[in-house]
């Protein structure tokens, strides 16, 4: 480690390569965080990352390091039977076994993470997951079903499938 006192007394005016690279990375991330929500397509893309439905995994993974804690208004409906738009919008009461809640981010976490995931295995029937996220004037709704894989009882697994959701304003 070679160092001279002048190093501190007269620090270089230009950052080194690694420092410049780090500044650039931070600036790029901040720019994406600010610029992407300016367009509806950008908002749809960001909402899509929280629903695991970006055009590809690579696009999703590239956006993952962007900080998005407590982003968007996220609601989840979980039911052993399919739900109608009216039931999810509050126009009709939910079936007794259905639940709904708000989550801080990534509503898909209710399928893939933590205690909910372990509980899935002990759920012997297909479960229906409806996700809704709003950001500014944009909204993304997703519909997943989780089916127990019954052909290998020694190695239980749950198959996650995203299905099209016919709804107003839904592509």
């Amino acid at each position, binding site marked *: 480690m070679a*160092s001279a006192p002048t190093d501190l007394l007269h620090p270089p005016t230009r950052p080194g390569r690694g420092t410049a690279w780090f500044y650039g990375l931070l600036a790029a991330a901040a720019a994406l965080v600010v610029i992407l929500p300016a367009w509806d397509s950008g908002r749809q893309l960001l909402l899509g990352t929280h629903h695991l439905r970006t055009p590809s995994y690579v696009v999703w993974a590239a956006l993952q390091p962007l900080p998005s804690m*407590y982003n968007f208004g996220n609601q989840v409906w979980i039911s052993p039977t399919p739900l109608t738009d009216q039931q999810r919008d509050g126009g009709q009461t939910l079936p007794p076994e259905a639940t709904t809640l708000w989550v801080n981010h990534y509503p898909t976490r209710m399928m*893939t993470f933590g205690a909910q995931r372990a509980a899935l295995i002990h759920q012997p029937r297909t479960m229906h997951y409806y996700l809704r996220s709003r950001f500014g004037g944009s909204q993304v709704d997703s519909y997943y079903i989780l089916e127990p894989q019954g052909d290998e009882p020694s190695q239980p697994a749950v198959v*996650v499938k995203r299905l099209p959701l016919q709804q107003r304003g839904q592509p």
Partner: protein
Amino acid sequence: MSAGPLPANAAELAPWPVNATQSVASPAAKGAAVATAPAELVRQAFKVALAFWLVGWLVKVHFFWPYFTWVCLDYPLVFDFFPAWAASPWVSLVAYLGPLVAGLAAMGSGSPRLWRWACWSLVVGSLVLCVHQNSYNDATFITSFWAALWILWLVTRGANYGEIARHGPLLAQAVISLMFLGGAVGKLTPDYWDGTAFYHIYFQQKANFIYPWLRTHLNDGTLLTLAAAFSRAVIVGEFAVAALACFASRQTLLLSIAVMFAVVAISTSFLFSVMGCLIGVAFAGVRLTRLNEASA
């Protein structure tokens, strides 16, 4: 914990004046000089940042350990969105354990070479967990990734103390501000501005801290009003911390630390897994301002 590689030559200690009344050879003078030597300050900054990073991962180990070693292994999800490696429970387990082992080894080591290897494992491990089916939703790994990048930057500067002094605190503040910027921008939606989201997530659904008490003592209308005020304060506060990057200094870093501790206090102690690494970076940045003060 062993001591780091302190500079042996007097030239590196020169920018820090030693009390003229003390003999240079006296143990007290030597101790004072060593305590403020640039290499020692950098070592301290590295160790404090790494310690908080590790505590952030360990604070939820009671959850992550059974999750990664039992739930993910025994209860697989078949989800074609993720490639096989990003759904493998073994990958997530190694990505979680690897940085912990390497980080703990670096904490007890004085070898800059080991520090660099450990920091690479922190960066790679947290990045893998950011994009893995088993862990993508946990903000712990996003903040850990950016904090690990900052620590890696620090330990790869070598003896360029001028560069560390000039850019270390600013980059530390920039990392913290970026995290808050992401949080603030994503709340620019009616569900947060009118308080609906926090009303449900905190005031209706949370079972810890003050929220159960509020539910039993306040009516829905009051809770919603409170949630709206809380939500707007959070948004403004997050933008304020994001803006601190423009005024990075010891004071802004200390303010950021206070804000982050407050965020943990009003949510749940588990949130320390998200904030801990950032708090560590802030403390390290504060430590590095000593380099700036000395060279001013």
